[in-house]
């Protein structure tokens, strides 16, 4: 018997727009995929690319980064800086051979509960199609502590 693959996806979202949008999806009782683990940060500008790498190191199959639409940033321009960073970072990951859909980006405002629910479904479906993040899982496996062989054996 084989169980269907359920991807683990980590969402890094900003406090002011996407987190509120996700909250709205919940209070509106919208049903959507349960594969997303949400981590709230002050702003997309606060999301260091190491957060994503750390997520992969701990076994995530994909990551989503979401924040305020351009012009709506609570700190005026945090998402503009973030946008530049992600433009290059996703290209770097792809150059290293990581599929583009492993890291996805979106703007979801506090009023877009529906968009959040649809987005989560869409991202989950695309990662389900990719399958488990074998590349990183192999790295994790290779990096495990190996018991030393006992003397005399």
């Amino acid at each position, binding site marked *: 018997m084989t169980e269907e693959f359920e991807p683990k996806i980590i969402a890094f979202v900003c406090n002011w727009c996407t987190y509120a949008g996700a909250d709205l999806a919940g209070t509106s009782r919208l049903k959507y995929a349960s594969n997303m683990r949400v981590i709230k940060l002050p702003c997309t500008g606060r999301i260091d*690319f*190491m957060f994503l*790498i*750390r997520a992969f*190191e701990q076994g995530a199959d994909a990551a989503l980064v979401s924040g305020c639409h*351009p*012009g709506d940033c609570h700190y005026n*321009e945090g998402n*503009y*800086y973030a*946008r*530049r*960073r*992600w*433009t*290059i*970072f*996703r*290209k*770097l*990951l*792809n*150059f*290293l*051979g*990581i*599929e583009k859909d492993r890291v*996805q*980006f*979106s*703007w979801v405002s506090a009023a877009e509960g529906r968009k959040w629910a649809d*987005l989560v479904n*869409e991202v989950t479906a695309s990662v389900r199609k990719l399958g488990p993040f074998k*590349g*990183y899982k*192999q*790295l*994790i496996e*290779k*990096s495990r502590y190996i018991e030393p062989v006992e003397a005399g054996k």
Partner: protein
Amino acid sequence: MIEQLRAKAKELLEKREVGVVMGYGRGTNDKTATPVFITDANRVDELVFDAWCYNNLLTFVTRDEHKRLGKAAVVARECDMKAAVALVQEDQMKADGLILLSVSCAGEERRFNGAMTVAEAEEWLKKNWRAKELSPEKLAEVERLEKMTDAERWAFWSKEFERCIKCYACRQACPLCYCRQCIVEKNQPQWVPPSAHAMGNVSWNIVRAFHLAGRCIDCGECERACPVGIPLLALNRAIQKEVNEAFNYVSGYDHTGKPVMASFRKDDEEEFIK
């Protein structure tokens, strides 16, 4: 050529325009060169410049122990001068805090282009060097890798990174890796696994490459310093290419402008954002 260089160094030291001349000196045998830091005008004869002089000496100008020696005149190959421009741009030194003794790049006929300020060096680079950036020859390896599938590329880089021994020579040799405390030396939290195992190596190489995004001046010191021969330059150039395509920017040609990743335009592309 070397006489011109020594004469200029002597003049700068005697007039007390600089406190130290950083240049190449003879190493332990006649096929090695080592950085020398000359503070005494009578010692300028120690300066050499030949086929064995290939370090990027601008790596040293941001180090505290060398800053204490006073204003520096640095022997810099043409391509390395971009590092000085980038360091001034990132506020690591004042525009008048450095004199460059410009010499030719490796593999070319050895010549001394004279002493330059950072602003003069920038003009010189724009005229003589800018057109050489991102040339097809430089991007050949990047394009070869781009043609592969994702899985092939992952296999290629995993194999390369597997050899990494985490000696951080790439960081030490880089003129733009000037942080007093690097992220890999922080352990609360520990962002980069310290062991040289498969995962730690990938993390480190992603961090190194991305912290240089839009800043790398393509001097190639990291790849040269790497004891296990990881093609780091291909990684840097892939980013350089993307930065140029997305933001029309090449690092090392604008000492008064804002660094590309520390600025933005409201109409930056965002087709990848849902």
